């Protein structure tokens, strides 16, 4: 028991380190002072009003949402068949491909951002929005391939083969039999990819342009010149949104589905 006691104390300390900053942000969002202060002297919702009425924040939010959504959907569209092909067929250089898809999760974001900048902006000279979208797509694609690939690893392909024998062609069998059985993997990869895109700073930093700035980058530059609790208020709203999404996922699938 003694050993466990030490472990418990350790866990509590680590957990506190993680949770205390969040608590402070939540509290400061309701402070009446013009600059962020903790503890707060009075209570107000006005920073939320400021945040919600700010045109640049609103635009940045919708841009980030749009980019994250489209990039993620594109990544699913390409990534699911790619993951399927990787686990279904014995391809030459399969190992190499797999580690290639792992690489963006290891290479520092700033390096990925810079290389995408050279490729998308300098080489391809793409318009800003399309370039941003392509960058995010490339960043989140490996997550989809890896998570969906993991789900497919658990899938017994003889199930699919039986479906063929029952008169189902390969396309139909993929949609009717394979997809429903890897749905939890697809949902996890969707969330992972969406959150990664929505949070991404280093890649967006290189790919944004006039009037097209994502929410995290907008917050960054806002914080550089302002020290009021608006950013806290936005953070609280984002946290709330995340909690609601997680709650819905938990209620419909169970959080264990994500851990799978």
């Amino acid at each position, binding site marked *: 028991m003694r050993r466990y006691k030490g472990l418990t104390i350790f866990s509590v300390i680590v957990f506190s380190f993680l949770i205390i900053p969040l608590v402070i942000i939540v509290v400061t969002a309701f402070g009446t002072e013009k600059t962020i202060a903790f503890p707060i002297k009075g209570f107000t919702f006005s920073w939320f009003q400021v945040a919600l009425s700010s045109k640049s924040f609103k635009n940045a939010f919708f841009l980030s949402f749009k980019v994250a959504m489209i990039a993620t959907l594109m990544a699913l569209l390409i990534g699911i068949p790619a993951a399927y092909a990787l686990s279904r067929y014995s391809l030459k250089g399969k190992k190499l491909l797999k580690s290639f898809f792992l690489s963006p999760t290891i290479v520092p974001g700033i390096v990925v951002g810079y290389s995408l900048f050279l490729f998308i902006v300098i080489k391809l000279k793409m318009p800003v929005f399309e370039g941003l979208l392509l960058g995010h797509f490339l960043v989140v694609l490996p997550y989809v391939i890896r998570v969906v690939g993991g789900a497919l690893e658990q899938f*017994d392909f*003889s*199930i699919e*083969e*039986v*479906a*063929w*024998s*029952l*008169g*189902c*062609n*390969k396309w*139909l069998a993929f949609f009717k*039999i394979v997809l*429903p*059985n890897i749905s939890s993997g697809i949902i996890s990869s969707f969330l992972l990819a969406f959150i990664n895109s929505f949070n991404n700073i280093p890649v967006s930093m290189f790919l944004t342009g006039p009037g097209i700035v994502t929410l995290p980058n907008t917050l960054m530059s806002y914080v550089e010149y302002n020290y009021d609790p608006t950013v806290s208020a936005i953070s609280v709203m984002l946290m709330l949104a995340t909690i609601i999404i997680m709650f819905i996922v938990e209620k419909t699938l169970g959080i264990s589905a994500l851990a799978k």
Partner: protein
Amino acid sequence: MSYVDLNEITVSYDGKHNILEGLNLKIEKGELVSLLGPSGCGKTTTLRVVAGYIQPRSGDLMVNDQNYTKIPVHKRNFGIVFQSYALFPHLTVGENVAFGLKMKKEDKKVIEKKVDNMLETCGLSEYKNRYPKQLSGGQRQRVALARALVIEPNLLLLDEPLSNLDAKLRIQMRVEIKRLQKKLGITTIFVTHDQEECFSISDRVAVMNNGIIEQYDTPENIYAKPKTEFVARFIGFENFIDVERKEDHLFGSQGVSFRVDDVPEYDVKKMTIRPDDIEIVKTPVPENGISGQVAVRTFLGKSYQYEVQSDFGSLIVNGSDSDVYETGDQIHMVLPSHKIVLV
């Protein structure tokens, strides 16, 4: 022409060496034929060629006078049961069984009726709304079978369907499979590595080794008259002794002649006999007699098995329960002429 005809089928996975080497197999309508052989001999590969999952390098598959070699799996209408059952995890038992009929776009009412009938036949009616993971192994097995049978397949393919079940259920299920197969008259290929299972269920057995069929015969003939050493060993023959032909029914080894009743047409190199068929006798016998010394004794349950050192090498003999011998004892044996098999 036979209902099913595999003609010179050659298969290679890597494009270099062949797993099946010019395999031939003919099956009559309504027959249940087993592919029997050790693990890795190519049974599953053969079945997958018939199912259409593997394209042979060369050779043809004819079914009902139609060339199926290039017809895709989903147009063959063959029922398949895998060892893992491969039930659709996200569908109920009823939906699993209905799947093939829905794919054929049959009328809803007809589907309902056929599914209910099939579930009834397989003793599954009460499990219709359960999911596969809520079933026992035997029940899953039945669902897999029902799902394959309900489409009224031209051919039923079973790949070691019973090997995940416990011994008692296995025997029960093989009787069940045989009953359904005969009742519905479906031509069936049954893959197994278990000879007892195979003998009990099959009309004919194809014993496979290294991608070829060594012998294709009735279970009775395979059991009593194996044609090659491989087949003989696989079905329990021991005591292989090199022989030369002396006269019509006399075969010599080490200067001794043995009488053999059943002499095949082809050249033979060895004679063999099951450990059960060698008789231990009290006094030396002039014809087909061998003497030797007990080297190892093993308890088998109903009696002892002896490893006997003789002039013909070491022989494996199953003793009767009346007389028991000790290690080192000198014993006399007879190889009955009607039990010796030449290969």
